[in-house]
Structure formats: structure tokens, C-alpha cells
């Protein structure tokens, strides 16, 4: 899979390759397959999101990337090096090139902001001068220069995560792993942290892998996304593609939360079984199609009535995406024609309601 390749030239080697990855835990009731047969490639400078419900295995998957969890089978290759073959000290050296941030920040309460950021350097055996040279620019990068001598307890959640990010970057890693990094933050702070991550990706060329249960995070920052369910990757692709055309039920549910192009539950209930006539369609406007005047054209050309039920327009990574639920009323034949027309126009249409009129013969 080389979907990250730009143009026709040879793709650069991927930063992270997970191959045939499985993890089996010994549970009280026998072995549990936490991860099964995971194959993922993540390109350099890419932001890759993994989304799933809690217990889906996303946390285990992320921890396999720096071998905090050792996979039962398969390999983990980061920057061309198979981590599963390294000995303890080799692994420790490799981990310095993989930064990690956490949902609950995991800062040391007994150390100041400055000393927390200095910690990975101390562990790597850096001298005082190196630390003094490295830490201030990092604090500057995350906007916390003023707080260098504060203890974590006096910082807000967003500030704590910024310290976490500065700390993760201290050893100049190539990869940043984000473990539900914004799940403990309010929406506004979440956005500012995501913006910071995006800046790091652009300015440092960092490869970022993030796991989350929130599709809004994926939509905001990720280039590609993998949907994990029951320890398997059920769907994987460009964020726009997965969000606009989710295939699996679990993906639809996750996408529905943020995109709202699924009919809301209460509405669906009201419509169920009593579509006044005709059919209920969901029309997806993907990419440039998002700007086209399809509805009025349908009404004119096919002499059918369209009743807007629910609609929404979103922007995913700068590309427009719209979804419209319409109740179309007209004869069977005309509806078929209209449907055919939409397909020719490459619009995705899905029939989500049924015809309840019994005077089918009428034309």
C-alpha cells in the first residue's frame, strides 16, 4: 500500500510498518486476542489516526509501536529497524526516537516544567550544558517559556499536555505516539493541542500516530485513518474517503457522531414506516459535487417533488462534503430515472426509506 506516495515517483520507505501483528493476552477465561493480523504502513511526515471504541484494541496497538506491549506475533519496524529483534539496550535507544504523550499527561509531580522536559535528556546521559541548550527552545515551541519553574499541579490540562509534548520531543524523535492525548481536555483546548501537533508535523516533519475514540480528532488532524474493532483493522484509508463513504457499521457509527450525515435517531423513528409517498434517499456530495445544484435540477428534469428532511455540509481537510436526506415523491418510473441520473453524475445515493404507497400502478 503506497497511498502516501506523491505522484508517480518511487515512494520513500515508510516510517512505520506493522506486519502480521497479533497480541494474545492470557485472560482468566483463557487466551484473549487483543490484536489480530494487523498490517499498517505509515509514511514519513504522515498523521495516522487509529479510531475505535474502548476495548477495541487501539491502546494495545499503539503500545506495540514502542514495544511497551510486546506483540505475540508479527514485526514492528520503525525507521527501518525491527524493534522486536532488539535487545533491552537496543530497544531503549530506539525508544528515544519515538516520543509518546498520554491522556493523563504522566508528568512527574515532583519536578518542575523545566525538569520534566529535561528528564528524557537526563536518561539519555546528556550533560547539564546540553540540557540547558535543549530545554528552553522546546518550552518556547509549546508556548510555556513563562512556566519553566512551575510544578505540574499549578498547570491547566492543556498546559500539562504541552509539557508532555515538549518532553516527548526532547530527544528529537522521528515519531510521536499520542495515546488519547486530547481525551481529558475540553473542546477548545483539544483544538489548540491538535493545532500544535499539526505545526510539529509541518515544521519538524514529525510522523504522528494517534489513537482516539473521537472522530472529530481524526477529522481535524489525520491524513489517514484505520478503524479498529475487536482487535482487527476493519477499514483503512484517507480520512476524506473513510468519513465520506464509511463501509463498516462500526465506522458509520463513529462517523455519524461527527458528520451527522446519518439521520438522527429521533428523526429516523418518526419517519420509520410512514414515508408519505415515494422514497427516502440519502445523497452524498463528495468533493466538487458539493457545490452543484442537484436538487433543483432533479425537480425540474423529472417532475418529482423533493422534501428536504435533513442536511449538512462539512469540510474535511479543506474538501467540501455534504449529505442530504430527501423524501422524494413521484411515480416509481420517475424515481428510477432520477436515481439513474444521480448515478451518472457520480453522486452517492442510498435508499434508506421504503415506499409505502400502495397505488404503485399510478403513473
Amino acid at each position, binding site marked *: 500500500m503506497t497511498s502516501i506516495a506523491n505522484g508517480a515517483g518511487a515512494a520513500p520507505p515508510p516510517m512505520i510498518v506493522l506486519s502480521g501483528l497479533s497480541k494474545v493476552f492470557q485472560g482468566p477465561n483463557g487466551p484473549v486476542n487483543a490484536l489480530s493480523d494487523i498490517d499498517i504502513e505509515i509514511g514519513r511526515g504522515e498523521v495516522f489516526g487509529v479510531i475505535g471504541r474502548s476495548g477495541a484494541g487501539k491502546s494495545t496497538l499503539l503500545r506495540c509501536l*514502542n514495544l511497551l506491549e510486546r506483540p505475540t506475533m508479527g514485526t514492528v519496524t520503525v525507521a527501518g529497524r525491527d524493534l522486536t529483534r532488539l535487545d533491552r539496550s537496543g530497544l531503549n535507544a530506539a525508544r528515544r526516537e519515538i516520543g509518546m504523550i498520554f491522556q493523563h499527561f*504522566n508528568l512527574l*509531580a515532583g519536578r518542575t516544567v523545566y525538569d520534566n522536559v529535561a*528528564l528524557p535528556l537526563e536518561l539519555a546521559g546528556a550533560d547539564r550544558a546540553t540540557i540547558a541548550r535543549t530545554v528552553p527552545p522546546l518550552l518556547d515551541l509549546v508556548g510555556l517559556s513563562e512556566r519553566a519553574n512551575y510544578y505540574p499541579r499549578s498547570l491547566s490540562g492543556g498546559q500539562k499536555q504541552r509539557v508532555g509534548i515538549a518532553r516527548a520531543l526532547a530527544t528529537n524523535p522521528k515519531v510521536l505516539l499520542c495515546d488519547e492525548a486530547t481525551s481529558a481536555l475540553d473542546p477548545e483546548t483539544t483544538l489548540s493541542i491538535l493545532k500544535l501537533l499539526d505545526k510539529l508535523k509541518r515544521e519538524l516533519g514529525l510522523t504522528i500516530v494517534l489513537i482516539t475514540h473521537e472522530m472529530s480528532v481524526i477529522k481535524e488532524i489525520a491524513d489517514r485513518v484505520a478503524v479498529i474493532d475487536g482487535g482487527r483493522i476493519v477499514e483503512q484509508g484517507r480520512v476524506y474517503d473513510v468519513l465520506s463513504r464509511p463501509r463498516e457499521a462500526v465506522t458509520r457509527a463513529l462517523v455519524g457522531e461527527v458528520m451527522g450525515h446519518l439521520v438522527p435517531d429521533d428523526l429516523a423513528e418518526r419517519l420509520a414506516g410512514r414515508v408519505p409517498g415515494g422514497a427516502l434517499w440519502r445523497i452524498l456530495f463528495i468533493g466538487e459535487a458539493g457545490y452543484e445544484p442537484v436538487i433543483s435540477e432533479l425537480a425540474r428534469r423529472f417532475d418529482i417533488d423533493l422534501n428536504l428532511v435533513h442536511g449538512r455540509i462539512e469540510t474535511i481537510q479543506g474538501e467540501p462534503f455534504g449529505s442530504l436526506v430527501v423524501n422524494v415523491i413521484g411515480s416509481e418510473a420517475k424515481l428510477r430515472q432520477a436515481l439513474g441520473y444521480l448515478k451518472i453524475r457520480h453522486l452517492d445515493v442510498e435508499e434508506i426509506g421504503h415506499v409505502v404507497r400502495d397505488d404503485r400502478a399510478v403513473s
Partner: protein
Amino acid sequence: MSSAMIALFLDALWETLGMVGAAGLIATVVGLPLGVILLTTAKGHIFAHAGVNRALGFVVNATRSTPFVILMVAIIPFTRAVVGTSIGTAAAVVPLTIAAIPFIARLFEQAMREIDPGLIEALQAMGATRLQIVRKVLIPEALPGLVAAVTVTLVSLIGYSAMAGAIGGGGLGDLGIRYGYQRFLPEVMLAVVVVLIVLVQFVQSAGDALVRRFSRK
């Protein structure tokens, strides 16, 4: 109270402080690594080792469940081997230390167990060695709890040292028994109790102040 009596009191106080201080210091120095081993050899921890964990746990529990009076008598041969005598202040330090080591080791273990496992995971993700995890996280982050453990141990040692006094260990307990009880001087007994209370209060307050000072939570 006569000046001779006051001199006796001061001597006894010094002896008590000496016994408690020496036993407390040695117990802290030996108990800290033992506490670390108790914690980190547990299942799923950084030095997980079922055999070591179980063996050490057994020794610690066995020592802690032996009543101090019995322990004191039972290890007389060992005490004699170490300090050359089984009577006096120096001799009392040996059983006090032996009793205090497993006590404080368990308290240390518990204090370090309170640390969020996320911190250990964070250090592992940074490529920390296991000894670095002990030095940079377990001990410094648990410092308030460790200080509290030392305080509790010193308070217990003050009580035990009075017991050691009863079998010729010197100190305030010895004074109380010999003068207060055997010579029927209830005011001496009372004075001993008051001094012990004040001493315990002082140690506890000093310990609490240190805990507050180190606490960054």
C-alpha cells in the same frame, strides 16, 4: 526533682535518642532497597520475579509477626556476635534494627505502590533503564510517602526502645522501670511517660512538616 534525678533523665533521654536514631537510620538505609525489591519483583512490575518476591515477602512477614519481646530474646546470640554483649544501649540497637527493617520496608513498598503506573510507562517509553525508573520515578515521586514511613517507624521505635529498656537496654524505658516501678517512685514513671509523649509529638510534627515540604501533588 533532684539535680541527680535530672541528670539521670538526660542520660536516659540521650540513650533513647541514640537507640532510636541508630536503629532508624540503619533500617531506612537497608529498608529502602528492600522496599524497592518487594515492589518491583511483584508480578507485572519492572523486575518481576516470583521467587524473590515470595521469599522476601515471607521473611518480612515472619519478622513482623514475631512479638518484639520474643524477637529481642531470640536473637541474643546474634546480638552478642555483632556488638559483643547482649546488655546495654548498643546491644538494644540490634533487635530494634532487625524489627524496624521489615516494618519500614513494607511501608516504603506501599508508599511507592501509590505512584501512578502511567509514570513508569512514560519512562519506559523514553527508553529509561529499570534502575533509572527506580532512581528517577519510584523514589523521588514517593518522597512524601517515604518520609511519612520514616516518621511512623521512628515513633514505633520510641515505643519499642522503652521495651528494650526493660531488659537492660538503657534509655527512658529502663529509667521508668527501675525507678518508677521497682523503687516505687510514681512521679518518675509519670515524668518518663510525659517525656515520651513529647518526644513522639515532636517526631510526628517534624515528619509531617517534611512531608508537606516535599509534597507537590
